[in-house]
């Protein structure tokens, strides 16, 4: 990690990060930096590598070249995994289990913030009364809300959100914005992919444009 500044605030530091699959470049070399309380929108056309970037940061894919560190750890190592949460296109919820049971699994796997309960977290995303419904009988937007509340339970500092606004109504989009606001205030950071124009209240957002 000799090339990196010893910035205590840095959560993500990427240096010439690139990814190619079978010699075909998916992600051109990227340099970026994300500190505590910072949010970055990853923008780009379909196929420009937004999801690939998030998967690399989560540690699911290995970069072809370049370096990336999450709180000083390489992605996918124990230290980095404790800091990172990924919300992808697949929400990672079991259709046969209820919302509350799914959250309980998430709490077992990822831990939870002090004094937060599953029911309270579901109420925060507007799913009061749906705690015992099996996930498969919920609508796409409601499933997304359950996944968001599972994300909100944990204490990971880096959120990697892949199209979090998809399937959500206007109130849901506001909800995501509020959740992101609170997360940044707690000293977290977030990388959010989007292809649409979604206004975010906070001023200090960065934009990362991906184009081959």
């Amino acid at each position, binding site marked *: 990690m000799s090339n990196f500044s010893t910035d205590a605030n840095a959560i993500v530091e990427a240096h010439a990060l690139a990814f190619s699959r079978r010699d075909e470049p998916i992600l051109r070399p990227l340099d970026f930096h994300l500190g505590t309380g910072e949010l970055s929108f990853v923008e780009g056309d379909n196929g420009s590598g937004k999801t690939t970037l998030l998967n690399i940061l*989560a*540690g*699911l*894919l*290995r970069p072809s070249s370049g370096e990336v560190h999450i709180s000083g750890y390489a992605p996918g190592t*124990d230290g980095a*995994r*404790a800091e*990172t*949460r*990924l919300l*992808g*296109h*697949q*929400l*990672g*919820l*079991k*259709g*046969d*289990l209820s919302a509350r*049971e799914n959250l*309980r*699994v*998430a*709490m*077992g*796997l*990822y*831990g*939870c*913030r*002090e004094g937060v309960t599953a029911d309270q977290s579901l109420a925060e995303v507007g799913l009061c009364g749906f705690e015992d419904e099996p996930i498969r009988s919920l609508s796409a937007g409601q499933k997304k809300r359950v996944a968001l509340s599972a994300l909100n339970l944990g*204490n990971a500092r880096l959120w990697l959100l892949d199209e979090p606004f998809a399937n959500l109504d206007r109130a849901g989009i506001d909800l995501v914005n509020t959740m992101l606001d609170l997360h940044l205030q707690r000293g977290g950071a977030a990388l959010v992919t989007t292809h649409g124009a979604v206004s975010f209240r906070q001023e200090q957002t960065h934009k990362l444009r991906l184009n081959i």
Partner: protein
Amino acid sequence: MTSPGLFSGFRAILQRDLLLAWRRRGDAAMPVLYAMIVAILFPFALGPNHQLLARVSGGIVLVTVLLAMLLALDNLFRSDLEDGVLAQMVLAPQSLSALMAARILAYWLVTASPLLVAGPILGYMLGLPAQAQPVLFLSLVLSSALLALLGSMLAALTAGTRRSGMLLSLMLLPLIVPVVIFAAGAISAVEQGLPWIAPLAWLSAALALTLVLAPVACATALRITLDA
């Protein structure tokens, strides 16, 4: 901040899998029904020859139970892969091997325990000698646990391929042959009044080895599956 311990992840996955099995108890009953149907058909095919049935009954029950366990194996990681839960497990700060151990334990409990109840009953029905019953039960316990561990490794390797059931069975065959030989060896030894402890000791040794290695192998195989 409450950081999740190793045990909390293990327990969360075990609880989740048992709950899922309970929600789909129809599916969980499939293997035991299959084993009963196959074992019941044998006397009709072989004819009502008591001596013949008594001699082959141990082997029939053993093979039927192991094949019945294969029914649920193909789906072990498939549904988790499809709904993204597997990615969440890989990304969790817990050791993936521990989570896989919970997954395999749940599979064994759900699939093998009804078969372990049915196995001795089927053996009795086919006229297995009474002194062989405890040995049949012991070898069923050991070989079903071995099959769960070996099979889950291969299920993890083939989880990413479509319609992998056939491939899985083919890959499992050479691994499961020694298990069947030792388990059946113990049963036939006790039937002939010979010492039967040695084959079971070999099975236990293999179980101890796979108990340690299979969860690690599973975790590695699933990481490869997700990376592709």
